[in-house]
């Protein structure tokens, strides 16, 4: 059998067997609509409440503070637009970091088309936001600050508690996109001090198309989807019951196994980073060297195209990414890499590895065996690499 090494777990994960087993009855035997009053539906409502409690427990929230969504993107949209519209009378200024996921950046840009103002906060060379800068940028009309807990592109984890404290003191709502962290590191909404937090089922190995938004109890939020009584009137539409059951089961398992996962993927990640930097010259390790996701390694390889690298590695059975799964097809220099000051030419060679418990040490050995010759082959075809070599020879 051909070797296959999947290291793109930020983009998609395989659904856990235990999760699949838990979901299956909700496609046929337990198909009722949770909003109905008869037993076929009311027992599904009870099952959904159990899942809500499991998701809440994973992040230290109360069950009634969880709204199920179709994933991280919808949760981010609901947070930004939900606060933006509900609190327009209070103000019209929103602050987001320049390294946010497109679902946050574009929700903020949407408000620019209305009568809102948006500040895109700059980050340092590791992708860190300066809490003092957030403090300086908040003004009387600021209603929301949104900063991702971690970047799926460069792995950097932000100092959220400090920013949350500043927002609290200033009376500004604070949202975090925690799609990259919930399921990868311990996350507690009370410890972080956030008002809203988005999560996705993907890092938990739940199915695609399910996620959730945590919103602090008592907070007013304008729904994106107006409809019936689902999610207490905050998200209309018949619920994705199999997805919700899957998210609940995955959250329960994650809570029990997270510390083992962190240990496992961190050891593999450290081996990968060490090997890549030793075996390949002219490679930049991007993101924060220490405060980063445990299963995340990101590099910029000089004088090659990341897309070509990803394509050639896939022919060897190795699956990685160039950055955000949503943005990589756009063939545009990554805004995140631009924001951390990586030169456009070097940013073209971006490659991101995201690990999961399904990965083994053999997987990393295989990558370290196959990656250097692939880079060498691509550089042999690269005029940029030829120029660099000629310049070094001349010196």
């Amino acid at each position, binding site marked *: 059998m051909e070797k296959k090494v999947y290291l793109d777990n930020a983009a998609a994960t395989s659904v856990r067997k235990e999760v699949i087993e838990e979901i299956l009855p909700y496609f046929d035997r337990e198909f009722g609509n949770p909003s109905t009053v008869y037993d076929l539906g009311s027992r599904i409502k009870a099952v959904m409440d159990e899942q809500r409690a499991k998701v809440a427990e994973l992040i230290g929230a109360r069950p009634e503070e969880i709204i199920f969504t179709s994933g991280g993107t919808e949760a981010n949209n609901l947070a930004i637009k939900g606060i933006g519209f*509900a609190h327009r*009378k209070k103000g019209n200024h929103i602050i987001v970091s320049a390294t946010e996921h497109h679902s946050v950046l574009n929700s903020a840009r949407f408000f620019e088309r209305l009568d809102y103002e948006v500040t895109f906060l700059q980050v340092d060379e590791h992708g860190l936001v300066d809490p003092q800068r957030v403090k300086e940028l908040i003004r009387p009309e600021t209603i929301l600050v949104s900063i991702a807990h971690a970047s799926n592109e460069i792995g950097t984890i932000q100092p959220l508690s400090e920013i949350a404290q500043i927002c609290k003191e200033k009376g500004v709502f604070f949202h975090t996109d925690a799609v990259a962290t919930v399921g990868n590191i311990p996350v507690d909404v009370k410890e972080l001090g956030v008002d809203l937090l988005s999560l996705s089922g993907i890092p938990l190995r739940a199915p695609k198309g399910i996620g959730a938004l945590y919103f602090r109890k008592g907070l*007013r939020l304008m729904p994106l989807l*107006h409809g*019936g*009584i689902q999610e207490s*009137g905050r998200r209309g539409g018949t619920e994705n019951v199999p997805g919700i059951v899957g998210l609940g089961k995955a959250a329960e398992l994650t809570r029990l196994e997270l510390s083992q996962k962190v240990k496992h993927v961190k050891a593999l990640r450290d081996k990968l980073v060490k090997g890549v930097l030793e075996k390949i010259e002219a490679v930049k390790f991007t993101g924060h060297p220490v405060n980063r996701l445990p299963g995340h390694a990101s590099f910029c390889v000089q004088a090659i195209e990341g897309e070509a690298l990803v394509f050639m590695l896939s022919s060897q059975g190795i699956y990685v990414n160039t950055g955000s799964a949503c943005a990589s097809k756009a063939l545009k220099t990554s805004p995140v890499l631009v924001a951390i000051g990586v030169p456009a030419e070097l940013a073209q060679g971006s490659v991101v590895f995201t690990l999961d418990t399904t990965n083994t040490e053999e997987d990393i050995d295989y990558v370290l065996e196959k990656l250097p010759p692939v880079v060498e082959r691509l550089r042999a075809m690269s005029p940029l690499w030829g120029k660099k070599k000629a310049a070094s020879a001349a010196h």
Partner: protein
Amino acid sequence: MKFVKDIKADDTLDLVCRMCPLHLLEPGEKLACMKEGQVLEVLTDYDGALEDIPSWCEKCGEEFIGIEEDEDCYKLYIRKKKGNGDGKESVSG
């Protein structure tokens, strides 16, 4: 419509940004956890609630005290009547 001012409420239910039929479901759930004589304040920006909530109170045997118009929402006051352990019965909105 009876307008009131400075009513002291024992509990508040914030339904701002949420529409029909939440204003006919959640007050009943909230009142079920309150004691006889206690006052529930319902905050809403849904115009339909101004007619629906008084008629819901009449149907469920709760006392509708009145309404106060605030800057960004309406405040409707309901006093829990004796023997209404569960005001979950709903009327069409």
